[in-house]
């Protein structure tokens, strides 16, 4: 599905408010019917946790809880999801590492949940500046076992809000954990945002989860088995669902690719930076464009293959040492020519810098 890219809202519309990305996620989640939020402080996502403390904690039937650790927080999400509540947690890179155990259990037990990762520089304690170094972890499952999570890569505050709402719907629809993979810049920058849903009067409770057996048969939520073929069947059934998600939910966006001779492939804040560079290069007559994966898993490989039928030169730009480039190369299977530019560690390049890389490549490859 092609993402209808939300344009930056104009100031004249009253329904728009100026908000930082972290708070926008929190507000969008509440409007999407969030009932339980469990978090643990870590920069650069604290505004999200604090917004929840202020606005979710006092809502009737809702819970805000500052957990003792990220491990506890994700397991609380698991508990709340078990009984049908829309539940979420948020963190940044080091904290997301700790949540992986719980994410694996959520995936295994087919429980919906929304997890926000406002990435910062790594490895280790790294830095608190924005980075994209958790792409591998996010798109490969992240924890132990053979599973996937849906991963969304927003690139504006408006998209953070829209995708948060979409994340809850996807999580419920496919009974799967959904990760919003943002970064420190997106989380902390302020932009006008419009919330496309009102807060629900009564927050929804899902059917089909544990509620106590009532007068009927008891139910079990588990994966553990001493019979490998039983677990194999669980893996197959997850896999079939993943195929369905690939078919239905793959989302991407393009910018000025129609006549482009060089296309940048970037997601999230990096795509935003690349867009700025493309604008100025276009003004100088360079035919450059942007291909932006919006779902990072499932990765939009089919549309990328379509793209290289017309454009031979691709430049993958990431704020890391090259992670998404592996998905690009896998998708293209040798077609086209793929170059890479990356800034790891929390360094945020300006559009000019990316523009210089693009124009150098443009001339080197004889595109002018």
């Amino acid at each position, binding site marked *: 599905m092609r993402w209808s890219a939300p344009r930056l809202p104009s100031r004249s519309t009253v329904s728009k408010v100026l908000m930082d990305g972290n708070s926008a996620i929190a507000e969008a989640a509440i409007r999407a019917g969030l009932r339980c939020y469990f978090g643990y402080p870590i920069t650069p996502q604290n505004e999200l946790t604090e917004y929840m403390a202020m606005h979710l904690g006092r809502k009737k039937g809702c819970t805000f809880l500052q957990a003792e650790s990220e491990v506890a927080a994700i397991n609380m999400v*698991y*508990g709340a999801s078990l009984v049908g509540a829309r539940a979420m947690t948020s963190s940044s890179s080091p904290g997301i590492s700790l949540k992986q155990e719980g994410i694996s259990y959520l995936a295994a037990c087919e429980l919906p949940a929304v997890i926000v990762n406002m990435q910062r520089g790594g490895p280790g304690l790294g830095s608190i500046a924005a980075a994209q170094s958790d792409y591998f972890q996010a798109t490969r499952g992240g924890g132990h076992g053979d599973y996937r999570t849906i991963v969304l890569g927003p690139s504006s505050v408006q998209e953070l809000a829209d995708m948060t709402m979409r994340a809850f719907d996807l999580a419920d629809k496919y009974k799967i954990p959904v990760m919003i993979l943002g970064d420190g810049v997106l989380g902390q920058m302020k932009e006008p945002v419009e919330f496309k849903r009102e807060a629900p009067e009564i927050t929804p409770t899902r059917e089909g989860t544990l509620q106590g057996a009532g007068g009927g048969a008891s139910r079990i939520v588990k994966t553990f088995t001493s019979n490998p073929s039983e677990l194999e069947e669980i893996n197959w059934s997850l896999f079939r669902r993943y195929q369905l998600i690939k078919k239905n939910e793959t989302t991407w966006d393009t910018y000025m690719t129609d006549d482009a001779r060089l296309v940048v492939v970037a997601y999230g804040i990096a795509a935003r930076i690349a867009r700025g560079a493309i604008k100025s290069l276009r003004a100088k007559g360079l035919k450059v464009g942007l291909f932006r994966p919006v779902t990072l898993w499932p990765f939009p490989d089919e549309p990328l293959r379509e793209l290289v039928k017309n454009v031979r030169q691709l430049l993958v730009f990431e704020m890391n040492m090259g992670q998404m480039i592996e998905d690009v190369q896998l998708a293209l299977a040798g077609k086209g020519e793929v170059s890479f530019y990356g800034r790891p560690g929390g360094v945020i390049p300006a559009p000019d810098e990316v523009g210089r890389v693009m124009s150098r490549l443009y001339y080197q490859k004889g595109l002018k």
Partner: protein
Amino acid sequence: MKLIYTRPESLKKAAFHYCPGCGHSVAHRLVCEVIDEMELRGRTIGIPPPGCSVFAYNYFDVDMAESAHGRGAAVATGIKRACPGIIVFTYQGDGDLAGIGTAETIHAANRGENITTIFINNAVYGMTGGQMAPTTLSGMKTTTTPYGRDPATEGRPMRMSEMLAPLEGVAYIERVAISSPANIRKAKKAIARAFRMQIDNRGFSMVEILSPCPTNWKMTPVQSWKWVEEEMTRVFPPGVYKDVTEPENAG
């Protein structure tokens, strides 16, 4: 004819996989009897751990969900916060609760989460083959303390009931022993009391059950029950450690 003994309704008609003489099967039965007698079956969710009791969901006829190792108290917190009307209990071993899950347990207790924990202390990691647990007695031989637990390098047995009782969120803690019919009756009373605390919204409740593991202790069932009575209770004295409904125990 007066019926004095039958299978509790909340206990499935399945044969236990536990070793002969194991305390888990007795503890399961007691919890099920309490659930029946308090008429809680329809609104209870149980959280079994990885451990010998991982298959507890095959025996308890109530809604059950598996938990990651040690995270029972966090999972129960999520359930209870989302659905306060549900009665939630975790069923945890000593490796689970006193080892990997210490943080989750202490903080759930401190927040006064209105949940009930059935804590099986058998002084070893049963399922993984009898390694040292935080509760292993000093000098006790396990597969990872082949020369006996040395307090100088491995610490002394951790007493969870004593540790948790002073926390203000805790409503009720009692330690009981599966070592004789009289003590088993006491254990059942304690379990019922713990669930009562939860029903009355009083906060965190836990029953620590000293429980024989003949297999890993390399004893016969009879020897192991005797060992609980004579050795374990010296390090882990049974008794009520907290009861907020009794003024002198309110802490």
